């Protein structure tokens, strides 16, 4: 069986190698991706339309705002699915697993984490808020924030992390993130534009149309950050404890 499965693998591998000779050179200005009118439009217009220096963020949060919103919804649904399958509401005393031993958290580890967690969290805010100018944005900032809570759960135990970010609040924050994103979209609709047409927000913000798009992008990035933070932590909490939400790893 193993040897017969090798045949399609080698065949597909050969086809992929064969196709890869057709690729344009890296950074080739004549390649289809670089010469399409869409990319030249973005390169020429992003700075003028939105005043955002980081083109990737502008495309992600503004030009393709619908796509990013539903991506966030996908993250939310994935978290809900894991919770629906794993979450264990019974109050029964759990069976001890083989490798489980009750030990005090290590002094060196916990003190290092004490020092590192605030730095991670401040960095995640920086990544989130600075996503327009430098690489970063809602997804990365949210993951970093979630990772800081996971670090607490890893070095002490899950209860300690859950006192800081209870699982019920997780779900509220995750839903709030999507609401914030969709709310900005609906608000721009109510102000006379289309869904997620941020430029219309100039009617409520004391800024120009371009800067309205700039600030609305920060708003939707914060929404994405909320959802991703909460779902990442909820995923870890449920997967590491078989949905019982207690004990260390």
């Amino acid at each position, binding site marked *: 069986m193993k040897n017969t499965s090798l045949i399609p693998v080698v065949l597909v591998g050969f086809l992929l190698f064969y196709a890869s000779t057709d690729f344009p050179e890296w950074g080739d200005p004549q390649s289809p991706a670089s010469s399409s009118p869409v990319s030249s439009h973005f390169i020429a217009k992003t700075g003028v339309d939105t005043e955002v220096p980081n083109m*990737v963020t502008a495309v992600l949060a503004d030009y393709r705002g619908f796509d990013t919103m539903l991506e966030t919804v996908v993250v939310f649904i994935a978290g809900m699915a894991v919770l629906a399958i794993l979450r264990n509401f019974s109050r029964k005393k759990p069976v001890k697993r083989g490798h489980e031993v009750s030990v005090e958290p290590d002094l060196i580890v916990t003190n290092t984490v004490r020092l590192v967690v605030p730095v991670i969290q401040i960095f995640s805010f920086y990544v989130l808020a600075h996503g327009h100018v430098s690489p970063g944005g809602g997804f990365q900032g949210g993951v*970093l924030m979630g990772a800081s809570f996971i670090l607490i759960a890893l070095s002490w135990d899950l209860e300690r992390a859950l006192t800081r970010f209870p699982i019920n609040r997780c779900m509220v924050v995750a839903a709030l993130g999507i609401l914030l994103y969709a709310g900005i979209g609906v608000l721009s609709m109510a102000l006379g534009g289309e869904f997620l047409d941020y430029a219309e927000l100039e009617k409520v913000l004391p800024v120009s149309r371009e800067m309205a798009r700039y600030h609305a992008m920060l708003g939707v990035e914060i929404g994405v950050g909320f959802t991703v933070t909460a779902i990442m932590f909820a995923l870890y909490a449920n997967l590491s404890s078989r949905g019982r939400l207690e004990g260390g790893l």
Partner: protein
Amino acid sequence: MGLEIINTLILLLLVVAALVALRVKDLITASVVFGVYSFLMCLLWAEMGAVDVAFTEATVGAGISTVVLVATIFNLKRKSSD
């Protein structure tokens, strides 16, 4: 020229990491090697100038997904059967 050498080195390490992740018996080791693979991809993207993608790969691929995999494997039998 220098970049070519770094590129080749990263690509070779990528292949090695992928093969090790497939061949190794212990699942924890496999998931940690997957983290290494993700981090090498992140280096490759950063070197090509796609810094946003590299950042996402570093946080999601090398960071969270390794942690989630390890957390899951701790609740399973650790050896692969073949």
